[in-house]
């Protein structure tokens, strides 16, 4: 069933020049995913906040890159160096990296470490823009940047160290004979689930948009303003995801080059299965397929593939994507209608829930004994450590940099309030019915 047998030993064969060049080329395509998700975030927000949303995505990428350079890369321990290692029950638990600051020694580091570092620069940017879409239309840019800084400075580096850079989750295979340790090849855990959980913490902290949940009656529909952005974002995201999953397979699984076509096919099939499932569910429930939910389904399939496209068969990828596409519209509806969670981009479901499902599926479909338990331990870490930690950080940050724009700013839109100009200046913005 496995295209690539997972490594049990951490012994790594050096990259050939061809593999180095290919991995670098693939990594340079990864920002397409970020661009796609940024477009989706923008399209799913309202027109009065479109420029602020897209500028926010760019600003968050910049903030994460700078903070990761100054602090995050060291704590992640990507370039090696020391770290904090606890010893309990006769095992070593590496909990924090303490590598060289400011990327000292980058040029002399092993080629694989250099590529891993580049991967993590893009990964932290991606993780930071995921919650940005959830706080659309009410989250101040300065507050978004502060959350991105914290994410890049401490939260993501912790996850990256534990999962990718020889931390205690990566060592579960060696220490406790749990398969190959916690597997997160394309970033389903440390990018998408982390980003989705951060989105939940932000949405809890910031509250819903004004008028979204009236005291009585159903929630107010606030559809995205540009379905073309959203759907084009899906296409861009696919291109980036194919590269991201392939690069992850080379970096974290040390897969042979011949395994890459299978990884790419698995990624495509997962997205396709998810789209077909969401299309069918929305067609059945609403009489017509819903474009934004279909986009969410497509993205959920890609997120699920991040965990497992390179270690499961194409048929399994199709199944995993289909399940993600099946629950995505239902969960989006559950969050909005039953749980009163206002998440304009659907990131909590698309990145959080689909990422968790992908991680579980990687364990279910992996033949390595104990792999499912390793995946469950990783999931327990994300839910039990990262979510409360993110919520605490958001609550503290909200006291110093208030997250939410004032009522007037929300009424006139984030573009005029924060940027002084609209994304579509020639259009007349109609009065919002929800403020009556």
């Amino acid at each position: 069933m496995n295209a690539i047998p997972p490594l049990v030993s951490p012994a790594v064969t050096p990259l050939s020049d061809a593999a180095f060049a290919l991995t670098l080329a693939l990594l340079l395509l990864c920002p397409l995913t970020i661009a796609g998700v940024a477009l989706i975030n923008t399209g799913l927000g309202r027109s009065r906040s479109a420029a602020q949303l897209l500028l926010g995505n760019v600003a968050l990428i910049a903030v994460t890159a700078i903070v990761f350079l100054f602090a995050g890369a060291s704590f992640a321990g990507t370039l090696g160096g020391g770290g904090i290692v606890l010893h309990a029950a006769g095992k070593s638990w590496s909990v924090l990296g303490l590598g060289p600051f400011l990327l000292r020694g980058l040029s002399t580091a092993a080629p694989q470490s250099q590529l891993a570092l580049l991967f993590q620069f893009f990964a932290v940017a991606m993780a930071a823009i995921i919650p940005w879409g959830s706080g659309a239309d009410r989250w101040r840019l300065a507050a978004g940047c502060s959350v991105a800084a914290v994410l890049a400075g401490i939260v993501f580096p912790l996850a990256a160290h534990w999962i990718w850079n020889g931390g205690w989750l990566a060592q579960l295979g060696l220490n406790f004979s749990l398969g190959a340790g916690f597997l997160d090849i394309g970033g389903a855990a440390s990018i998408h689930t982390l980003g989705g959980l951060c989105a939940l913490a932000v949405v809890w902290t910031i509250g819903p948009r004004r008028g979204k949940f009236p005291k009585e009656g159903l929630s107010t529909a606030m559809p995205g303003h540009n379905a073309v952005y959203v759907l084009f974002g899906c296409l861009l995201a696919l291109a980036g995801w194919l590269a991201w999953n392939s690069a992850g397979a080379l970096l974290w699984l040390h897969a042979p080059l011949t395994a890459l076509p299978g990884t790419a096919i698995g990624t495509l099939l997962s997205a396709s299965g998810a789209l077909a499932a969401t299309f069918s569910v929305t067609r059945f429930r609403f009489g017509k397929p819903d474009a934004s939910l279909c986009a969410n389904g497509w993205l959920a399939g890609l997120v699920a593939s991040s965990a497992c496209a390179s270690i499961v068969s194409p048929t399994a990828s199709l199944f995993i994507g289909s399940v993600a596409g099946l629950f995505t519209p239902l969960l989006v509806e559950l969050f909005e209608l039953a749980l009163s969670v206002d998440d304009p981009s659907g990131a909590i479901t698309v990145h959080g829930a689909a990422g968790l499902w992908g991680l579980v599926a990687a364990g279910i479909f992996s033949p390595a004994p104990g792999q499912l338990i390793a995946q469950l331990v990783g999931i327990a870490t994300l839910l039990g450590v990262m979510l409360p930690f993110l919520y605490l950080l958001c609550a503290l940050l909200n006291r110093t940099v208030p997250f939410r724009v004032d009522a007037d700013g929300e009424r006139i839109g984030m573009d005029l309030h924060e940027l002084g100009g609209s994304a579509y200046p020639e259009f007349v913005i109609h009065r919002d019915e929800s403020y009556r």
Partner: protein
Amino acid sequence: MKIAGLLVMPAGFFLTVAALVLFPDPGRRAAFVLCGLAVEIMGLIVAVRGHMPARGASRRQ
């Protein structure tokens, strides 16, 4: 409610880690890891309910 739920979640995580250390037997280990996850999910449910805005209150009064 909000804080209680979020405090229960790390408790589930520690249960999961304890299962790794205390139970070499795969069956028991799996059972306790699942118990830890169940505790986390209960905490998550409590936290979600704690964050739900009060809606329809005026109608019930």
